[in-house]
């Protein structure tokens, strides 16, 4: 990071919070295609601090898993990446998050634009009470696509991308509420894909699903990383080990360890990481 950039970042920190944060020296990592860079991120819900000085670089076109016990801030962190966390009015943040080298907390940066690039799949399948087609076409429509043929193509491509086209191609006009939980979640993934995002955030996407649906979603995640960068919060360490390339371990709002998944699970550097993955707590 050069001087000018650093000054800018500091200025931003000062603008966003009353107390200026002292920048910590970070270990220089080789910059291999990181798509999101988080620097010294702090977050408060009112007066409760939920994230402390989180810094990490999310690699492009890989699966990054975020693990940690309940209440460790992993979902909060995920929702900060597309600024959904600001839906809670009392949230304050400081620090910097750069998506493709652009500061997402900048006042000029539109959160609507960010969210078209950084899509999200939620913990509970949350389709709209509309048909499968209208669910998937929702994103393209809000971004101004009206032509039926174009929408048809997007819907088909997205449902294929979410590996659910074959199951649903004859049921496009059915209400999405009538689908099984696993199908609903894959429709939600298709819906996220239809906006053609760059990054997909997944907040425990399988926690409400049965084992078979879970396996399907996990398989899908593997296919999706060809085209998308995926960040997945999971409660399930086996899942993180199975599907992710990199894993971040959060505890009490701090990022304890962030490494290649194999390394983190087989050779954790931090005692707390080791305790957690060996099941001593959490």
């Amino acid at each position: 990071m050069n001087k000018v950039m650093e000054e800018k970042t500091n200025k931003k920190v000062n603008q966003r919070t009353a107390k200026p944060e002292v920048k910590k020296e970070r270990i220089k990592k080789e910059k291999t295609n990181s798509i999101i860079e988080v620097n010294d991120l702090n977050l408060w819900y009112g007066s409760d601090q939920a994230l402390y000085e989180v810094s990490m670089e999310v690699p492009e076109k890989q699966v990054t898993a975020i693990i940690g016990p309940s209440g460790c801030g992993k979902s909060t962190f995920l929702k900060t990446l597309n600024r959904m966390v600001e839906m809670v009015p009392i949230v304050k943040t400081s620090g910097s998050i750069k998506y493709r080298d652009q500061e997402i907390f900048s006042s000029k940066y539109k959160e609507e634009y960010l969210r078209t690039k950084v899509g999200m799949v939620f913990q509970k399948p949350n389709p709209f009470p509309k048909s499968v087609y209208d669910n998937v076409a929702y994103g393209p429509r809000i971004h101004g696509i009206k032509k039926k043929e174009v929408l048809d193509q997007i819907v088909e491509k997205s449902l294929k991308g979410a590996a659910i086209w074959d199951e649903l191609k004859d049921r496009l006009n059915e209400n999405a509420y009538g689908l099984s939980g696993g199908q609903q979640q894959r429709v939600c993934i298709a819906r996220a894909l239809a906006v053609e995002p760059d990054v997909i955030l997944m907040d425990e996407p399988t926690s409400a699903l049965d084992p078979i649906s879970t396996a399907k979603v996990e398989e899908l995640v593997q296919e999706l990383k060809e085209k998308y960068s995926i960040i997945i919060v999971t409660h399930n360490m086996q899942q993180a080990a199975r599907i992710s390339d990199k894993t971040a371990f959060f505890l009490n709002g701090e990022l304890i360890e962030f490494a290649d998944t194999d390394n983190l699970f087989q050779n954790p550097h931090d005692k707390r990481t080791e305790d957690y993955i060996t099941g001593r707590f959490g």
Partner: protein
Amino acid sequence: MLGQNEQNIKKRMEGRVAINKVLMVLFGMATAVGLVFLVLLFYRVLTQGIGYLSLDYILNFPAPYPEEAGIYAGLIGSVFLMIIVAIFAVIIGVATAIYLEEYAPKNKFTEFIRVNIQNLAGVPSIVFGLLGLTFFVYMFNFGYTLIAGGLTMALLILPVIVVAAQEAVRSVPAEIKEASYGMGASKWQTIARVILPAAIPGILTGAIIALSRAIGETAPLIIVGAATAIYTLPESLLAKYTVMPIQIYNWTGRPQEEWQYVAGAGIIVLLAVLLLMNSIAVLIRNKYQRRL
């Protein structure tokens, strides 16, 4: 030992079951009180009014003789009034509810406004009549006209519609709002495409129930000068008008017995319109709920 224990339980159980039965009867009787009076009301109105109810009655203007009198002016006046009330009250009410629920900052001031709108819903209707007299009749110089009456009634039911619409908007699940925002939708897009479609059954039900209240209101319209006897239909917003409840009120005040029956027929028409409106509310609700 065990046997005795079991007997104790049995004994106490008999008591519990008995209490349950007594309460069931009491609650049933409470329901019956309401039902009995409703049946009596229907019986009285029907027996008194049915003799005077005919197509002529519906299509006649008021007349000096009971046999020739009709409710046409009141019926059409009520319909016109309701159209004005619906347009103003629903548009302003829903917009207010959306602002309060989705845009307004969540602070003490917003909460203060919210509580006071609820209080406003309980203000006696005659107070709204005085408000309408001051503002619409005199200050805006509308006089005793249809628009003055309509706006007064719109104000009267506005709080009810705001509260109903707020509840409908609030009951839209946060998950589907998040889904919309998560794809880069703006607030307005989310409101127009997700929140309002999901809230419409609740909003319409609330609006129609509020309108049903307005169609039976008499007091505020007497104050803002609805006419008691009128022989033309209102031809513009600035025309004189009357409504069914006022017409009925006027008839009941006359000494001859026949007018009571004429009034009874009027009540039947009013109840029929009310029933029609409520059925529409139920139909709309069912239609949209099936789509969910």
